[in-house]
């Protein structure tokens, strides 16, 4: 099965590393204060995929994560719920039960996360199983082995097959940018994934030390923009891995807003995958509300 695409697919564009990194850095120098700061903090919560992907996850832990996702700050109802919780397939049942009726979606990693290296049929079963359990969104990993070998047809075929297995569920394709070896490759992997049917492209699994960085997200956002210009398709972006502070979060918001436009700054098209970020955002909101610097004693231990 060869993935057939009649849309223009350019894999030859190379990325100017120096300009990209300089541009990303220049977008971090904005000072965001008072009402804008509060809006940015709320937006980063609304776009958050609150994540737990540990071997030690339990139904109880997932239930408390969902509680937090639904109402991040029980003392302040102005704080919005997050976009989704992100869990392993085995935990989807509990997450679906705990978020029922709240509007918080359930995302599940699937397809031999985080390596993606098992038989395709097993990976597709994994995806179908997560969807059957009620996951609204599926996060799969790109087959880096095939990608780095240069077998782009296989990469696209697998993404297309995964999209089919997803049915109604949204498909996010994790590029694991830290393993691709450079911005040219990241752009190429972005293009391949988008052409093969990804609804979202996502930076990292969070399982390797080289996680999401601002230039990487800028590179992917530019790929999304160019793809939209060429094909008219609107693809979402998820930054994940290593995002721990509110400041980092709004750097991403600025990069997305400046590159793709503010239309992209919605939970439908932009996500921040994180586990500890929410606590930092809540502490920053606490500082805005009380005028006092907060601390980890005033948020939950997850």
């Amino acid at each position, binding site marked *: 099965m060869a993935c057939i695409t009649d849309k223009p697919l350019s894999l030859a564009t190379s990325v100017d590393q120096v300009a990209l990194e300089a541009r990303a850095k220049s977008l971090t120098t904005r000072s965001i204060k008072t009402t804008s700061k509060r809006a940015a903090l709320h937006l980063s919560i609304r776009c958050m995929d609150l994540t737990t992907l540990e071997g030690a996850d339990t139904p109880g832990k997932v239930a408390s994560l969902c509680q937090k996702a639904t109402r991040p700050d029980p003392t302040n109802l102005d704080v919005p719920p997050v976009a989704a919780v992100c869990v392993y397939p085995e935990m989807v049942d509990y997450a679906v039960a705990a978020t029922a009726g709240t509007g918080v979606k359930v995302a599940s990693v699937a397809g031999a996360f985080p390596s993606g290296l098992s038989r395709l049929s097993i990976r597709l079963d994994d995806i179908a199983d997560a969807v059957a359990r009620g996951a609204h969104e599926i996060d799969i990993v790109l087959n880096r082995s095939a990608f780095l070998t240069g077998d782009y047809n296989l990469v696209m075929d697998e993404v297309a097959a995964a999209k089919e297995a997803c049915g109604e569920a949204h498909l996010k394709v994790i590029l694991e940018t830290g393993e691709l070896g450079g911005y040219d490759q990241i752009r190429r992997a972005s293009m391949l994934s988008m052409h093969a049917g990804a609804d979202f492209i996502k930076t990292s699994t969070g399982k390797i030390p080289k996680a999401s960085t601002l230039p990487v997200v800028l590179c992917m956002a530019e790929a999304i923009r160019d793809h939209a210009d060429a094909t008219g398709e609107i693809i979402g972006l998820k930054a994940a891995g290593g995002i721990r502070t509110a400041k980092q979060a709004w750097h991403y918001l600025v990069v997305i807003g400046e590159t793709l436009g503010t239309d992209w700054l919605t939970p439908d098209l932009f996500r921040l995958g994180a586990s500890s970020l929410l606590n930092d955002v809540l502490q920053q909101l606490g500082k805005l509300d009380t*005028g*006092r*610097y907060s*601390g980890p*004693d005033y948020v939950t231990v997850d």
Partner: protein
Amino acid sequence: MNEHLPVDKTFKLFIGGAFPRSESGRTFAVRDAKGALLANASQASRKDLREAVRAARGAQESWAGRTAYNRGQILYRAAEMMEARRPEFVSVLRQIGVTPKAASKQVDQAIDRWVWYAGWADKTHHILGTVNPVAGPYFNFTFPEPTGVVGVMAPDEPALLGLVSRLAAVIVSGNTAVAVVEGPASLAAITLAEVLATSDLPGGVVNLLTGDKNELLPWMMGHLDINAVDLTGAPKDLDPTILEEAAVNVKRTVWGDSTAESPYAIADFLEMKTVWHPIGK
């Protein structure tokens, strides 16, 4: 060119084991008694304070988790490093107006103070903890634990001995410190930071901010992640509403002796925990 061009030291802050400039970019002039410029020191902002508290919080658990013996060794190491740089400390004190004899004596005392508090590291439990007699089949112990992150308003005088006496009493039990130093004492403080950075003291256990105490104190008193505040060197005639802020998270507030050499100066920054344990057969 044969002549050596003098290289002056930039006096920066000490946060998390590193020497950053203030994020605000501000500096203040430190002058000697005759008004001559000695240095431009970094003037810390409330955001530097926030970063310092973050560093102190990050370091606290593992510092308290070290054996008392090891903490004592590290304080002793600070004395060793100060001894090695004795002439530099004397010279800094001379610059900020301390007489030669007094400067020499103050450096000696400061070094001795590290050694004195180092010795207390593994003794506070015996002296301050107890086994309580209770009416029941229980062992009942009370023992001291570090309070956590301590904000320190460093005494202006004596510049070096005052800071060392307060810091040693705070950190020896496993607390971490964020100290604010003002005026000419800043030069002695940052020179001390260079000693601490080479004394096996983990980054973040001591953080030193130079700047304006009146500017930083309200933020320190209100900071919810600071557990105790040493007001020994706080500005005089403080607005009491600033101090009331400490009540918001029940901060311990301490007014001590600027050159304290007492186990009770350590006790000021300890919490007493009592444990009941059933006696069985």
